[in-house]
């Protein structure tokens, strides 16, 4: 009864529904713009969360993530251009349906499946996070150090591309985290006499620079986005027969989305393509896939909306963000002086409760706002790119200045944008860098604290069984990633010879 009362008070006593609705709405619009990923949509909001109370701030960001995962499917269906990477699988059958004059049906299946995925993802989030938090309460300084290393190595190993580049990006992130005042002795490091650097580099500045500013820099040399016909601004939900047919692909999508969301580094893109393939494999209408199959939309859309919730599991339980979007959400926690992990559940349970409440209503808000905002999404997609870029640039500069009223912050964001642009050219991933930055303090302070407590005995990291397990897992991930290409080339060579 107490819980019911608290839920009622939360929904009626604070503007949680309003904040969640704004987040979902902003997410739908941001996700619908090609080139603006969920993480960028969230990063643009980060400065505004500074003025909000902690609960509203994290609800706003989390619901933006939920909205953006659906928003990405709108241009995927209408103009064959996914608004987000995770919506790329939706283009295959979504655009095919649109070409057959069934855009309204395709949009309806996408929204309906997204809502189903969101509900399943939320339930999994609630039931999985609690047990993991209880495990995390047993952690000691060596465990936290090992956990930080495990998070970095898992992200570097699973984020795709070159392992060497991903590890290097993680080390660079750790280097940036050392700027400022040393956590043990208090001496200043790498500040170059700048008082603005004494407190370190705020992760939010690096995130906005890397994700949003570098995207604008990259977009600057690209052409205009494709336009959409205004007569497609309708949604038609599936009837009873089609809803029954969609159950299987939705369950496949949600199942894969649950697994991929919990796995750091995997994310919605892999989940949506995997679920598309599995839905085709298990479908009675496999021949329709690629030519406008409703199941080909339902599976990936359920998957990426499930990921939007389950990706929060490792972030909330251990403080390890598994994707760009959850890294930005972590930035929202850090702005308000909160660090996700078991302590958060003990010290800021109201924020967690608020976050769950916001996420619980987000699928229903998605349903309502997804229908209402479709004309706005189409209008936004059809705006000249030059104007959209100008307003996003102005929004970034105004928002970043709002945080500390510092011109130095603007310079850091621009510099991070420039670095991000060249990282894109050289194909260095962003996520390991961001993770290194946000975990840097935890890794260094717990490493040194462990050694102080043990009288400089490095065996302290192996004496704690959980820490030893984490370190062994980290070594397995790195060695496995290094060995995988060698094994592949050996197998290809053997096949070629035979």
């Amino acid at each position, binding site marked *: 009864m107490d819980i019911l009362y608290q839920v009622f008070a939360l929904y009626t006593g604070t503007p949680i529904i309003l904040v969640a609705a704004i987040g979902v709405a902003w997410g739908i619009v941001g996700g619908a713009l090609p*080139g603006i990923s969920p993480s960028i949509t969230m990063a643009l909001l980060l400065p505004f969360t500074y003025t909000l109370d902690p609960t509203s701030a994290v609800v706003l960001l989390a619901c933006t993530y939920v909205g953006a995962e659906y928003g990405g499917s709108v241009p995927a269906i209408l103009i064959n251009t996914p608004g987000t990477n995770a919506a790329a699988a939706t283009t295959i059958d979504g655009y095919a349906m649109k070409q057959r004059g069934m855009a309204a049906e395709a949009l309806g299946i996408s929204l309906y499946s997204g809502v189903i995925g969101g509900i399943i993802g939320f339930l999994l989030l609630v039931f999985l996070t609690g047990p993991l938090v209880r495990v995390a309460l047993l952690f000691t300084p060596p465990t936290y150090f090992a956990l930080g290393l495990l998070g970095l190595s898992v992200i570097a190993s699973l984020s795709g591309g070159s392992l060497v580049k991903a590890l290097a990006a993680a080390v660079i992130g750790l280097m940036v985290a050392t700027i400022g005042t040393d956590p043990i002795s208090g001496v200043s490091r790498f500040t170059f006499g700048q008082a603005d650097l004494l407190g370190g580099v705020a992760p939010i500045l690096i995130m906005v620079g890397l994700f949003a500013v570098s995207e*604008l820099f*990259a977009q600057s040399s*690209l*052409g205009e986005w494709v336009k959409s016909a205004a007569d497609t601004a309708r949604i038609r939900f599936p009837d009873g027969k089609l809803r029954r047919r969609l159950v299987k692909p939705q369950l496949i999508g949600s199942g894969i989305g649950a697994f991929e969301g919990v796995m750091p580094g995997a994310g919605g893109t892999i989940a949506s393509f995997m679920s598309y393939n599995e839905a085709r494999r298990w479908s009675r209408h496999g021949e329709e896939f690629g030519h406008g199959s409703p199941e080909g939309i339902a599976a990936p859309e359920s998957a990426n909306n499930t990921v939007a919730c389950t990706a929060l599991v490792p972030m909330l339980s251990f403080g390890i963000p598994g994707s760009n979007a959850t890294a930005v959400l972590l930035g929202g926690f850090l702005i308000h002086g909160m660090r996700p992990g078991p302590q958060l559940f003990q010290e800021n349970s109201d924020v967690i409760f608020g976050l769950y409440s916001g996420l619980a209503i987000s699928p229903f808000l998605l349903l309502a706002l997804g229908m209402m905002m479709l004309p706005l999404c189409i209008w936004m997609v059809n705006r*000249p790119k*030059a*104007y959209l870029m100008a307003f996003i640039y102005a929004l970034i500069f105004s928002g970043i200045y709002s945080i500390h009223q510092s011109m130095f912050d603007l*310079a850091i964001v621009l510099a991070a944008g420039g670095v991000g642009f060249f990282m894109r050219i050289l194909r260095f991933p962003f996520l390991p860098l961001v993770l290194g930055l946000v975990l840097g303090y935890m890794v260094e302070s717990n490493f040194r604290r462990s050694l102080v407590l043990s009288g400089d005995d490095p065996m302290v990291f192996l004496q704690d069984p959980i820490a030893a397990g984490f370190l062994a897992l980290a070594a397995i991930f790195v060695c496995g990633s290094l060995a995988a290409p060698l094994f592949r080339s050996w197998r290809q060579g053997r096949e070629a010879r035979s």
Partner: protein
Amino acid sequence: MGSSGLAMAGGMGLHEDKTMRDFIGGLVLLALAAGYYLQSLQIPRSTLNDSYGAHGVPQILAACLAPLGMLLAAKALVAMLRKGGVATATAAEAAAGDGKGSASLGRSVLRMLGMLGLGIAYILLLPWIGYPLAIGLMVGAVVLYQGGAARFGLLLTMIGASLGFWGVFVKLLGVPLPAGIWAG
């Protein structure tokens, strides 16, 4: 990397030169490791230090980054030598690219520097001309830089942006943005 994958693969066409890109990336990492290590030597020693000191972890990080840079550069160098030299490898890789309307690297960097310049100009001008004028000018400059037409509608957009951003940030959110010439 978020949407960058879409943007870069679709537009910039930089995937054409993987080996050279990795070689340059490796050298950049080496330079960064060296610079960071040299700076770590400047960190003052404190009587409150533990056995590692404030410089200990930075030096470990520099020692981790340097071999990663060497490995990346060495792998790229070996790949280039196997293909018969830098020029041949680059030409072959460039020829292998799909070249679907992609901008050249030089043009992309110049465009990026232009956007960066507009941002720097905004930062320098903001304290002098004040937020409403600076934000309006920046919106106009970015629109023109991105190929928007210089017509009456743009002027209205600039005025609208000035008033809109000033209204939201200064009046609604109460952010003390520099007033510049509008002070008082």
